[in-house]
């Protein structure tokens, strides 16, 4: 079973040299900590940064320099600042190669729900709808089941959708799953110590398990 950092660490492997990457709030933010040495990527923050750096050293916070999660951040040498229209322009024009974000539910055909629980939580979609509608490569980082113990990998999302047919890969505490073009979740790797049976039990949507499923080595 993976903890949040384990999920982030596993996702970091999907980040390839030369990529421009947008990291959502929560676990995706942690991915930045695990990108291997020698892999040059630039982080895009949709409020208007390319080349976002780590949190500032204590005392060096700048109120004018925040990320899309409103956290104080820094700029790396070679970074650039732009307005929100250009930011979403580069997202729509698919210049950002990889988007990693959290989800409440993902369906077999790659639909994602992550912005609203009717009657309960309505904080807004922020930039998520723009990102999932345009990004060519979307990885979801999330817990496999919700607090009520129900699977979040579903035949069909129950919650209001953020985007349709867009998620390509899911990493949970239990394993790594590809969303198949024809629909369905394909188990790619098991988390350390997790059995295929456990994963089957926790997955409500159609799960494809072909041959021996390797246990991931982090």
């Amino acid at each position, binding site marked *: 079973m993976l903890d949040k950092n384990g999920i982030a660490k596993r996702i970091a492997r999907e980040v390839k040299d030369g990529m421009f990457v947008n990291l959502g709030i929560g676990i995706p933010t942690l991915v930045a900590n695990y990108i291997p040495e020698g892999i040059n990527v630039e982080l895009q923050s949709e409020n208007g940064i390319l080349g976002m750096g780590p949190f*500032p050293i204590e005392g060096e*916070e700048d*109120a*004018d*320099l925040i990320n899309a999660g409103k956290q104080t951040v820094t700029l790396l040498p070679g970074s650039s600042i732009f*307005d*929100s229209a250009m930011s979403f322009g580069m997202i*729509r024009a698919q210049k950002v190669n990889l988007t990693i974000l959290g989800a409440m539910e993902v369906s077999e055909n790659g639909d994602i729900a992550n912005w609203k629980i009717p009657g309960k939580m*309505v904080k*807004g979609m922020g930039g998520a709808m723009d990102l999932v509608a345009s990004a060519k490569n979307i990885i979801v980082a999330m817990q496999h089941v919700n607090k009520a113990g129900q699977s979040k990998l579903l035949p069909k999302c129950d919650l209001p959708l953020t985007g349709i047919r867009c998620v390509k890969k899911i990493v949970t505490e239990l394993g790594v799953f590809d969303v198949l073009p024809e629909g369905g979740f394909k188990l790619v790797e098991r988390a350390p110590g997790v059995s295929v049976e456990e994963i089957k039990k926790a997955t409500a949507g159609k799960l494809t398990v072909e041959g021996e499923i390797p246990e991931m080595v982090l």
Partner: protein
Amino acid sequence: MINRVVKNAEEAIKDIKDNMTLMLGGFGLCGIPENCIAALVKKGVKGLTCISNNAGVDDFGLGLLLQTKQIKKMISSYVGENAEFERQMLSGELEVDLIPQGTLATRCMAAGYGMPVIYTPAGVGTEIAIGKETRRFKFNGEEKEYLMEHAFDADFAIVKAWKGDTAGNLIYRSTARNFNPMMAMAGKITIAEVEELVQVGQLDPDHIHTPGIYVHRIFQGEKYEKRIEQRTVRKKD
């Protein structure tokens, strides 16, 4: 050059009336027009429709105008972290139109660029698409569905810049830029408050983010609090 300078926030907003539509720059509490918000609270103008990416926090930013119930409707992309907002929305006191952040930015840009509508794939297949005209287009070798979205039509845009000159030219600092440039371009009347107002000739023409043609009134604000919403730091290595 045409002089755009007004004395202060009170003078800048003097003709903002009840039930008008305002655009307000900023992302979270970053790059918000603090002085104008304070002046709007003081003026007590009511029934406002506010186009702003966020709604501030309970006791700062647009949260101040929510407390005094001066806002009738918010058009935003994200309104978390604001208990009074949630209360007013759930009780039905406050109308809320939640739209994707890129759609918000691009509808501002459309207004500034004289484009009556734009197409975006954001929200296709979701409840955002309900009642909207859709159309399939090929872009970048891929055909997909887009939503038609209209340019905003705001009476006033109120933005915050770092430096400005008397001709209304604006330069933003770091991510306090965010929505400010597009909104500055989009207002029928645009008000800019700046941390430092300089004479013409002191800003490099190549560094101007918002040309003065878009800015009808400019003043140097005071007592900027520039509150940080999420102070995150790391230890020195």
